[in-house]
Every structure is written in structure tokens, then in C-alpha cells.
């Protein structure tokens, strides 16, 4: 039984690598198709664009080679995790990403955790008596938060909690001047994390609330639960062992879908709250035609998604004995 699962995971791993490669090729092609020459931007920043200058910049970055050649060079360097230099900053991209990625992961993973911690119990609660007052209230309110544009919620939150109440900071990840390392910095970061993470979490709560609610309702109505009840098993035990365990499966699916949003989805929150993350970095890189950097961010995001998917699949294979070698569920 285990060898079947391991085989399954192995093939998933191979597939992941293929998909990763496809991501790289697609993004590379898409970005190279973009109008606007990165060399021109650089030249513009340096005060002029006389032909010799621009040509030299292009040669420096290998932009004068053919596209397939550039792609080949790029893939080869990716294989050794050499992400190259950023056009604009002239620094190793791995360094740049390393500076900004932790901030985003801190934000989005916290938001994910909070939304799971709030959404799942509330969803289960709502599912116990569907269409009654509590359910209607919970679904309507959570839907409301899902409907609010993130920047709107963010700005309102800042005005309420920072400007009027002065409880929480309005921007940034740290207060300048606090010495690095140690408890002071940790608390400072947590204090800054509160508003942005909550804003993002409120948005996601709705998803997990609804998914849990739907899954729980479905499971409650299923045959084996009714049988379990009929045989007199204590309600709590039914909940733990049967209902929740089965209802968690679609939640895991959704949470792993979330992985794709861990990086790109934080752009707006990072912009509004001046959170120094990689989402905002990607956006800036796009506007500045710093394609090397943008490509690498896509690559990093895809790697994270792969990891998450593998984790989710492993969890799934572990939790649900019905899944073995059949087609993966949606």
C-alpha cells in the first residue's frame, strides 16, 4: 500500500518538474514579447539613449543574442539556481528575492493560518443548522468581506485603526530605529503585521467558511454518518472522526490552491500597507522592465506552489484511504 502511495508521489514530482519547466519557458517568452527594451529604460535612467550606449547595455545583458539562445542560457543557469543579475540594480537576484520573500511569506502564511482558524470552525458551526439565523448571519457577513476590494478594506482599516484610534501602525514592517534581533524587533514586527494580515485574512475567511460549510453539510447527510448516529455513537466522536475528517479534504484542496496566491496575491496589501514584500517587488519590476527579476519571482512562486501541492497531495493520500492510484480529485 505504501509503495503505491510513494509511486504516486514520485510521478507527481516528475510532473511538477515538467510543469515548472513549462512555466519558465512560457514566462520567458511572454516577457521577451513585451514591447519596450529594458536597455532603453536603463539608458533613459542614465540620462540618454545614444545608440552606442544602448548597444553596450544590450551586450552586457546578453540581449543581443537570439531568443532561443537566451532561453537556453537562462534554463541552464536556473538549473544551478543562478538567477542572474537584476537589470536595474546590478545585484544578484537571489539576494534581492532573499530580502523580500520572507516578508511576503510571513504576511500570507499568517493570513492563511488566521483564515483557516476562523473559517473552519465558523463554517462547521454554520453547517450544523443550515439556513437558520446563525448560518444566514455568518454567510452573509463573510460574503460581505469577500466582496470588498482589498485596497478599500485596507485603507479603511488604516484610517480607523491608525489615524483615528492610533492603535496600530499605518505602514511598514518595522519601526525605524529598533535594534535588530531580539524580542523588541519580534514584537515590533508582529505589531506591524496585525493590520495587513487581518485585512488579507478577512478576505479569505469567506472561502474557507463556505467550503467547510458545504463539505460538512454534504457529509452530515451521507449514509455512514446517519448510520453512525443510528448506532448511538456520541455526537462529539462522530464529529471528530467522521465529519470533520472528511470535510477537511476539500479544505485541503482549496488551501493548496491558495499557494498560487501566496506571492502574487499580496501585491495590493503590500502596496497599501507599504509591506516590503515580493508581490510589490514584482509589480515594480514589471513597470521598470526588469524582466530578469520578474521571471525569477514567477519561478520562485511556481516552486513554492509545487512544494505546497506535493505537501497537499501527501496529506490527502495519508488522510483519505480512498485515494490511491485513481485520477486525482479536482
Amino acid at each position, binding site marked *: 500500500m505504501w509503495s503505491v502511495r510513494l509511486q504516486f508521489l514520485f510521478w507527481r514530482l516528475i510532473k511538477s518538474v515538467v510543469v515548472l519547466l513549462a512555466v519558465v519557458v512560457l514566462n520567458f517568452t511572454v516577457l521577451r514579447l513585451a514591447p519596450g527594451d529594458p536597455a532603453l529604460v536603463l539608458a533613459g535612467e542614465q540620462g540618454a539613449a545614444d545608440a552606442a550606449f544602448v548597444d553596450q547595455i544590450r551586450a552586457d545583458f546578453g540581449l543581443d543574442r537570439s531568443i532561443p539562445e537566451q532561453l537556453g542560457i537562462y534554463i541552464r543557469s536556473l538549473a544551478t539556481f543562478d538567477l542572474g543579475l537584476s537589470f536595474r540594480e*546590478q545585484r544578484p537576484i537571489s539576494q534581492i528575492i532573499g530580502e523580500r520573500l520572507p516578508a511576503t511569506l510571513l504576511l500570507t502564511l499568517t493570513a492563511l493560518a488566521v483564515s483557516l482558524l476562523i473559517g473552519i470552525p465558523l463554517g462547521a458551526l454554520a453547517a450544523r443548522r443550515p439556513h437558520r439565523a446563525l448560518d444566514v448571519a455568518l454567510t452573509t457577513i463573510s460574503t460581505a468581506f469577500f466582496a470588498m476590494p482589498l485596497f478599500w478594506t485596507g485603507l479603511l482599516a488604516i484610517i480607523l485603526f491608525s489615524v483615528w484610534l492610533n492603535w496600530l501602525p*499605518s505602514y511598514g514592517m518595522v519601526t525605524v530605529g529598533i535594534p535588530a534581533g531580539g524580542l523588541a524587533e519580534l514584537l515590533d514586527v508582529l505589531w506591524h503585521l496585525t493590520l495587513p494580515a487581518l485585512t488579507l485574512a478577512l478576505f479569505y475567511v469567506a472561502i474557507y467558511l463556505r467550503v467547510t460549510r458545504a463539505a460538512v453539510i454534504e457529509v452530515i447527510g451521507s449514509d455512514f454518518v446517519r448510520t453512525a448516529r443510528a448506532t448511538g455513537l456520541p455526537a462529539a466522536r462522530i464529529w471528530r472522526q467522521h465529519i470533520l475528517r472528511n470535510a477537511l479534504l476539500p479544505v485541503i484542496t482549496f488551501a493548496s490552491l491558495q499557494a498560487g496566491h501566496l506571492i502574487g496575491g499580496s501585491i495590493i496589501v503590500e502596496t497599501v500597507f507599504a509591506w516590503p514584500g515580493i508581490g510589490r517587488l514584482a509589480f515594480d519590476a514589471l513597470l521598470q522592465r526588469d524582466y530578469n527579476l520578474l521571471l525569477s519571482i514567477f519561478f520562485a512562486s511556481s516552486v513554492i506552489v509545487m512544494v505546497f501541492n506535493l505537501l497537499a497531495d501527501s496529506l490527502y493520500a495519508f488522510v483519505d484511504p480512498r485515494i490511491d492510484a485513481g485520477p486525482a480529485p479536482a
Partner: protein
Amino acid sequence: MFPGHWTKSFAFGLAALACASTFAYAQKSGGTLNLIVQPEPPTINVGVNRLGPASFIGSKIYEGLISFTPKLEPRPELAESWAISPDGLTYTFNLRRGVTWHDGKPFTSADALFSFQKFLPAVFFRAKLVLSEAESITAPDDYTIVFKLKAPFPGFIQIFEVTGGTIMPAHLYEGVTDYRTAPANQQFIGTGPFKVAEWKRGSYIHLVKNDAYWDKGKPYLNDLYFHVIPDANSRSIAFETGKVDVLRAGDVENFDISRLANEKGVELTEAGWEFLQPIGYLHLNNRRKPFDDVRVRQAVAYAIDRKFIIETIFGGFGREINGPFYSTKLYRDTSVETKYEFNPEKAKKLLDEAGLKPGPGGVRAEIELLPLPYGELWQRQAEYVRDALGAVGIKANIASVDVAGWFQRLTTFNYDIGHNFVYTLSDPAIGINQTYLTVKGDNAGTSGGNVQGYSNAEVDDILIKAAHQNDAESRAKLYSRFQEIVTRDVPLIWTHEMVFPTVFRNKVHNLTLTGLGTNENFADVWIDH
């Protein structure tokens, strides 16, 4: 401020320094100043990148030979004194002794020589152009550098402030051939009053006092923090809640600046831009129909209400202008200008004369408008211009471009009307010439260049002659004739003289002391604490 007097520059230098040093009350040492830099620059090495954000921060770390007073007289920085020969061909700078780089090595003429001979011409196009006017650059001893020009060039002294003539540490670039990509560029070693303590990407840049600074007792401040805040509202809130002490134009919307300036303990100043002299431009593509016809260009000038632009779009910050020269420019001659007041009826008549009669729907011509992709303010201006042109029958569509796209289209003459603003700098030879000299070929080179494709042989002649004209009166006559021609031809529209307000808490002093304003090195800035 006439060029001839600069031979007495030594006395001038001292006098300027003395004026700057007399205060009514004593400065306090210590304290932290919080400012905003937006957007975050890719580097703070001013030698490599001199755009707004980079020069804002880099000007505290690096220095030039001189700086400029608000009246645009040179004042000493790394050069203690200087002399210009009466024939205007030889510039001798006497460099300051006892100056050390942030890494402890001594500053000598070798660094200046390296900067002007090798580094700057390789990385900065305008420096290359101006320095090519020099026949030779030599350093007779460790503390002197001499420039011999091929012909007199009164504007030459203008390039020696920190952004035009950054002094770079020669010892870090030994053996380097490609200066643009040299790893040493990341080290940010300068001679300035502040050095880099920490750059937390995405969050802030922290500069600390340089204890070994050559001006003993300065800087007064201990720390400078440049906060990175991507959203305009957050920046406004940061100032309101006391997290930052200074807001520069562009950090927040102009009407927000007015609102914040009204708060208690907050002051506003329009000073600090005397050196850069920014002017708003509306380029009309002279190489294409319909703007190849001067009557159509004049019609556009009549169709736009520039008072509205200043009052409503720029929140009252701006001054009216009718020609290519900023109000503080020496050679400005408003008596020869052709003025275009806001008069849509006159505009329509001119369009009729030019053969652009109204067609179906009242549309005489359809054109594309290239906005300046720097933010909402400029977008609004584009929308206003679209509206104003629509009122006289010219249908304008606003193109969607980002900075790279805008730069490319503008410099390759691929647009109809384009928005821009340019720092015209104090000497026309350095700031203005490239905008009006004929461009051969398809590339204007830079967004401050002749992107409208204007070509007038007499103007070419005048500008080149005037650049090398040492005699003040003759120079003034030449520039008067230039203004006369150019305001008649109106190859581009000067929308307004830009005023960049700075808002700060009144505990901060000497923020805009010199003609460079907040782009000065902040050695003299102090906080009342």
C-alpha cells in the same frame, strides 16, 4: 551674477559661505530626521544614477567640487576656491585638504581626475558632452585640477555640483574597465557628511553622521532615515502621525500638501529648485501632420488654459510662463515673446486657416496624446488637455504607456502630443540647447532632447554661438533673438513653470539652504530638540 565677476570667485566663495553661516539662533547637534524617498531607487550611487530618488539620497553621501546658492552663485564644496582665466578658457580648482573618503583613504586630485576623465564620461551622457568641450584635464599637484577648454563656454561651471560632476573614489576602481557594471558601484563610498549605515530594501535607507567630515562640527544631525512607502495615502498619514518630518513635492498630492501645511507646527516653502528650474512641456510633434504647421501649433497654445492647469491641476503651485526660460534665468526677455492667452475662438480660426475645417461631429483632426506616466497628477493633466482640445475640434485619445514606453515613443518621434517636464538648469547651454538643436536621424537621444523634431537653422546657429560667448551683453542679445523666434514658432508649449513645495515640521531648520534645496548634502540641517 555675470560671468566676468567669477574671476573674483575666491572672495565670492568665502562670502557665500559666510552668508550661509549666519543664523539668528544657535544650531543644536544631534537628532534624527525622517524623510520619504519614493520610489525606492535602484542605487544611491549618484555617479551612476542621478534621477530624483537617487540624487535625493546620494547627495548626502557624495559631493561635487561646488554647490550653488539660491541666487545660483557657486559655493565651495570639495573645491575651496577656483579661478577662471579672463579669456574663459582655463578653469583652475583648488581642492580642499584633509578630506577623507568614508573608508578612510584620503581625497586628492587623483579622484577628481578619475571622475572627470574616466568615470563620468563613461556613465553619464551629458557629462560626456560637456567634458568634450575641454581640450585637456590635468592635475598639476595633489590638490589642484585644471580644465583647458577649446573655446569659451560660460556654462561650464554648472556641471560641477554633485549630480552633474560627482567625485568618485579612484582607489575603488583600479583595473576596472566597465564602470557601469562595476561591483564597486555598490559600495557607496563618498566624502559627504553622511554615510550608509543600513539599506533595508523595501523599508528604509539609514544614513549616519560621518564623524570624519571635513567641515568640523557638521553635520548636526546624527541619523537620516529615508522611508519607503509605496502608497500616497500612507505617505500622507505618515506625515500626519509624525512618522516623517518632511514631505517633498510628489510625495503626496498638491492639495494634500496645502492641507498638511495648514496644520500646527508645519511650514511650507517653495524654495530649493532654483538650480534645477523645472518647466512643464507639451511637445508637439513637428515632424508629423498636423503639427508640422505652425498655425496648428499656435492654435493649440490658444486652446489650453494654462491658468487652469496651475490652479486646478497643480493645486496653485506653479507660475505662468510664455517662453523657454525660467523666471530666474539671467537671459529671460519677456519683451520679445509672442504671448498666447487662453482663447479658444482664436484657436478655431487658426485651425480654419490651416485648412482643418470641422468634419462630422465637429472633429477637425484626430490625434494621440502621450501622457507622462508618473502618477495621477499627470494623468489629470492629460485628461484636461484632451478636453481642451476637444472643445476646439481636435479629438485626442490618451495612449496607455508606462515609463519605458513613454520614453521610447517620445525619443523616436512616435507620438502626436507628448507630456513631459524638464529640469532646464541654470545655464541655457547645458539645459536648453539639446531641446532646440536640430536632430538628424530618428532618435532624439533623451527625453530632455529635441523630441518635437524642431529644426530652425537660425536657432541652431544662435544656440551654438551663445554657448561659447563669453561677453554677457552679446550673449543676452543672442538669447533674446532665440526667445523671439521660438515663441513665434512655438515648437512645444511651455505649460507652466513648476513649483515644487516642500512641507516640513518647524523643528527642522536649514532644509532648503542652497539652490539645490533638499538635494543638498544636509550638513547644515538641524533639529530643535
